[in-house]
């Protein structure tokens, strides 16, 4: 205790270690917990100082590296040169200068800098296996959102879809073997399902629905899939985020829109403080999608957050904004093969507006008893929509399945045997600590694995992506035809 009192007037060594053991981003994150004025000094192999960053209470007070000061110096610190870190506590100054920014925000920016500096990955020779995004730098394993604002609209590659298939061409969903979910049973061949009443109405509905595959300009439109659930807390956002990553990694241009004003998507990515505006800020305004769309570290995946720090007026509007959602989602469909929209919980209000603008909907149900009892509300909610405003139910995915839990198993069987079971996806997502680990670093589960290897559960999203693409009729994109023979 005596030592700590004395040290308030001295530079006091706190810890020192090698960056091969602990990454600089990790060191800075834990130092950011401290409310002391702290210096993190980086040294080269020869012992010389490479640079220093000063931190207090999660704020970066300053940075110096070589001849640079400020933000540029901060980014320079993440190069390969330094090998040792030295953390010291400094005396409190009389006054602090204006901080460079929050440590979280600057780390995000440093990741984006690292990504921009990294060479573009070579095109995959065989696109059959979904390519996992490799980190361009050790730092880049920490964050998902890229630094810059919306990129220039990408050119439509000639190999991608030439418009959405006609609505009648959408393959019929299949009934899965419901004895056990795919995550625990392996792959069983699906049997054809009887079309539901909703399917029949959907087939017969007029061509004025948003699923019509060509825009007024004649440009082909992507597919818009809403993720909806009658109950909250079922993991819709987790499904949406990881499914979007898997779809993009198949080679499809993908846009993920957060339509839930609570903005759980940004929470999952630990990026709330990095976003100033979102979709609710531009709904019904001339600003449009370009003002709020963000690039991500996953090639071909763009993200539209719900809102920034200030609650937009559209978020609290009581009137229907179906027309505004339709206009915005059509903008997204003009630049993407697949637009995924993470809806708020419940099947009415905002969800109904979004559904009316979508070509398809995926239901998300949780494998527990309460959720299983509300499963019927999914189809009842859809049935309440006018036929011309009703997207096609692609299927229902069961989330948070626990194979060792009798109640979870029971809930799964109830879902499977109920109305929603008709359209159950073969892929079921288990409850897994991998999601918690991924949320710790603010990454999709497929990008958060140790040593570059994603958690096994990540591959389930690749399978789910395959099913969604199959059922929406865009499976052929990026997927080569299987060989006619195996042995050559």
């Amino acid at each position, binding site marked *: 205790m005596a030592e*700590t009192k004395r*040290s308030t007037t001295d530079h006091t060594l706190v*810890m020192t270690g090698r960056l091969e053991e602990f990454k600089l981003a990790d060191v800075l994150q*834990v130092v950011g917990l401290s409310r002391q004025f702290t210096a993190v000094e980086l040294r080269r192999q020869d012992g010389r100082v490479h640079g220093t960053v000063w931190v207090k209470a999660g704020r970066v007070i300053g940075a110096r590296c070589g001849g640079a000061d400020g933000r540029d110096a901060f980014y320079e610190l993440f190069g390969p040169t330094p090998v040792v870190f030295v953390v010291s506590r400094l005396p409190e100054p009389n006054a602090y200068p204006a901080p460079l920014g*929050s440590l*979280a925000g600057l780390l995000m920016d440093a990741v984006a800098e690292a990504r921009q500096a990294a060479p573009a990955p070579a095109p995959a020779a065989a696109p059959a296996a979904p390519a996992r995004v490799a980190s361009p730098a050790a730092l880049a394993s920490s964050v998902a959102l890229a630094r810059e604002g919306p990129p220039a609209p990408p050119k439509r590659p000639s190999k991608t879809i030439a418009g959405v298939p006609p609505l009648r061409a959408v393959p019929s969903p299949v009934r899965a073997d419901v004895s056990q979910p795919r995550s625990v049973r392996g792959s069983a061949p699906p049997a054809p399902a009887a079309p539901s009443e909703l399917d029949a109405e959907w087939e017969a509905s007029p061509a004025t629905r948003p699923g019509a595959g060509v825009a007024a300009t004649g440009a082909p439109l992507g597919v818009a899939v809403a993720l909806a659930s009658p109950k909250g807390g079922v993991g819709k956002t987790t499904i949406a985020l990881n499914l979007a990553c898997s779809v993009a990694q198949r080679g499809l241009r993908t846009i993920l829109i957060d339509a839930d004003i609570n903005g759980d998507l940004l929470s999952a990515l630990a990026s709330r403080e990095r976003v100033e505006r979102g979709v609710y800020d531009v709904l019904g305004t001339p600003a449009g999608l370009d003002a709020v769309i963000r690039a991500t570290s996953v090639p071909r995946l763009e993200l539209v957050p719900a809102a920034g720090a200030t609650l937009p007026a559209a978020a609290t509007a009581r009137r229907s904004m179906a027309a505004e959602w339709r206009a915005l989602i059509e903008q997204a469909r003009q630049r993407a093969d697949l637009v995924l929209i993470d809806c708020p919980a419940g099947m009415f209000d905002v969800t109904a507006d979004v559904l009316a603008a979508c070509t398809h909907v995926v239901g998300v149900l949780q494998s527990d008893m309460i959720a299983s009892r509300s499963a019927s509300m999914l189809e009842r909610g859809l049935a309440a929509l006018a036929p011309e405003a009703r997207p096609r139910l692609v299927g229902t995915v069961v989330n948070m399945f626990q194979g060792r839990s009798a109640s979870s198993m029971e809930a799964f069987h109830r879902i499977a045997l109920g109305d929603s079971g008709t359209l159950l996806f073969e892929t079921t997502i288990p409850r897994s600590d991998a999601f918690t680990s991924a949320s710790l670093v603010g990454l999709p589960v497929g990008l958060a694995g140790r040593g570059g290897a994603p958690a096994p559960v990540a591959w389930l999203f690749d399978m789910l992506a395959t099913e969604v693409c199959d059922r929406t009729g865009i499976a052929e994109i990026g997927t080569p035809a299987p060989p006619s023979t195996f042995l050559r």
Partner: protein
Amino acid sequence: MLTEAHKQAIRRSWQLVEPIGETAADLFYKRLFELAPAYRRLFPDDLAPQKRKLLAMLKFIVRAMDWSDDAWRDTVDVDEDLFLVVLALGRRHVDLYHVPDASYDAVGAALLWTLDYGLGEAFTTETRDAWARVYGLLAQTMKMGRCARGEGSATALRANDG
């Protein structure tokens, strides 16, 4: 990094856990030894003092969340500094108890399971995320304890080790 929302979620949920602290501590160690039976030998036969230390540590962590981002200039005593205290705790876990890095995964899983079990519906996705994030940062800090020198290895938590 921790946001104001994370800190609020931690404080709010702790208000519900604290009255059932003893039960929560029982659940935590029961779950921990289910997940990792080999760790039982790292603890004394009588777990009661250990449970008190665990609750004291959790209480300290929650108290350390009780400041606004706007107050970042404020000074705090080193004995109340979350990073310094946890770093020193990590150093002792390495030097005295020889706790392997791998154990932090099991401890984190047991903690989240306990909170889930104890809080029920109140353990929302946001609350789980907040606790997972805090635990992840603190576990990383403890692992860095083996790098602690000087003040980083000397700072004492009055309530003893958790």
